[in-house]
């Protein structure tokens, strides 16, 4: 369980970090390390150089930009979980963070690291996808933004290019009469979910749903947005009716923990519960 040998640098600027990353084809970014270090321990990853972003200036911030919330990539999950601005502007993120690992993991784990790692069962990539957020990346050829729907490409895979660094995660701020919910089915609390649903709904003054966001985790090679369910809810369908559409387009794999059919069943169950709870908390 000991990591393999590697070289290590801890640059203090984004420019220096990009230079270091470009200096070695086998270099990897080290953010909080709470996923990467176990991968090293299991020898599932063997980078020759780790570029630690912990001392890079300007990557640890929570910025309220009115209709958007921008969170620096190296913001620790525990800080975001406790931050009053995040609680007010993006309560779904706070609720999701409570499901990430355990407190000691969240002390070190970062917002950007989890999104860039793109685990299909992880909460934070699904939050960004569900809310239609985006990420800011920087590389040799400059800065760009990647919409969440274009970001997740497959198992632990994103459209962030080699040599690029994710610098910030951006999500739309929630409006009035917004409800949210995160429902997961896991073998043990804190484990990766067999299936989970992350939901945010907004109601108008008459109580009709005018904005619907639902993403599912653990049911594919990436987080999946449940467009059919969202459309049904916006069309006035009840949570029970809408949730029956959750398995549409999904083909989860089977493993020792759950069969594909069971995961599809859970997609409906978690969607129904998340929609119901979100509606209740919005009312």
């Amino acid at each position: 369980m000991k990591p393999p040998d590697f070289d290590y640098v801890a640059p203090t600027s984004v420019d220096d970090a990009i230079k270091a990353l470009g200096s070695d084809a086998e270099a990897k970014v080290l953010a909080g390390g709470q996923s990467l270090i176990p991968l090293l321990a299991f020898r599932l990853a063997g980078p020759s150089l780790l570029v630690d972003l912990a001392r890079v200036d300007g990557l640890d911030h929570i910025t309220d930009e009115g209709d958007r919330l921008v969170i620096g990539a190296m913001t620790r999950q525990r800080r975001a979980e406790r931050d009053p601005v995040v609680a007010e502007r993006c309560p779904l993120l706070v609720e999701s963070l409570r499901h990430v690992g355990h407190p000691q993991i969240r002390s070190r784990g970062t917002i950007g690291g989890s999104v860039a790692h793109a685990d299909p069962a992880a909460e934070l990539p699904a939050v960004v996808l569900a809310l239609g957020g985006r990420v800011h990346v920087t590389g040799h050829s400059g800065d760009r933004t990647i919409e969440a729907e274009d970001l997740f490409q497959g198992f632990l895979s994103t459209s962030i290019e080699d040599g690029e660094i994710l610098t910030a995660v951006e999500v739309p701020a929630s409006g009035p009469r917004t409800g949210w919910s995160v429902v997961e089915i896991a073998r043990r609390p804190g484990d990766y979910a067999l299936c989970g649903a992350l939901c945010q709904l907004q109601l108008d003054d008459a109580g009709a749903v005018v904005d619907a966001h639902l993403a599912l985790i653990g049911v594919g090679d990436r987080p999946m947005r449940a467009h059919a369910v969202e459309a049904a809810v916006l069309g006035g369908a009840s949570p029970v009716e809408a949730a029956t559409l959750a398995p549409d387009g999904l083909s989860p794999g089977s493993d020792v923990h759950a069969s594909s059919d069971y995961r599809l069943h859970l997609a409906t169950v978690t969607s129904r519960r998340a929609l119901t709870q979100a509606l209740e908390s919005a009312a």
Partner: protein
Amino acid sequence: MTTHDITVEVNGVAYDRTVPPRLLLSDFLRHELHLTGTHVGCEHGVCGACTVQLDGDGVRSCLLFAVQVDGCAIKTVEGLASGPELHPLQAAFSGAHALQCGFCTPGFLMAIDSMLDELSAMNEAEIREALSGNICRCTGYQGIVEAVQATVAGDKHDGR
């Protein structure tokens, strides 16, 4: 591979050491500083036995490299009590029979100590959730939860 010179404060004492990047903080504490109170269980971030405090936060020392904590302050279970008297949390563990074999105990103590303020506002279910990052195979957790409740209530535990 390169080595790095680091300065780390552990339990109030500054240590200068030269470390290879792959050296885990858990191994640094145990093998370099001979602070063997920090236990290593799963060594991939699941069991919580290696929990220490980094600048006050509970962290898993097996999911950190020593080189990452250059300039930081670490507290291990050896730094919990001052002098021969047990820390109130340790006394509560003793009083509530919150340990049997003791392997997981240092991790529990350091995790709980890092969260005492939050734990004091929690009900039993929330305490159990907050402690879910630490695994105990002996006690069934009942005594551990009782020890937390006794500590945040300020009860003196002298054994049952």
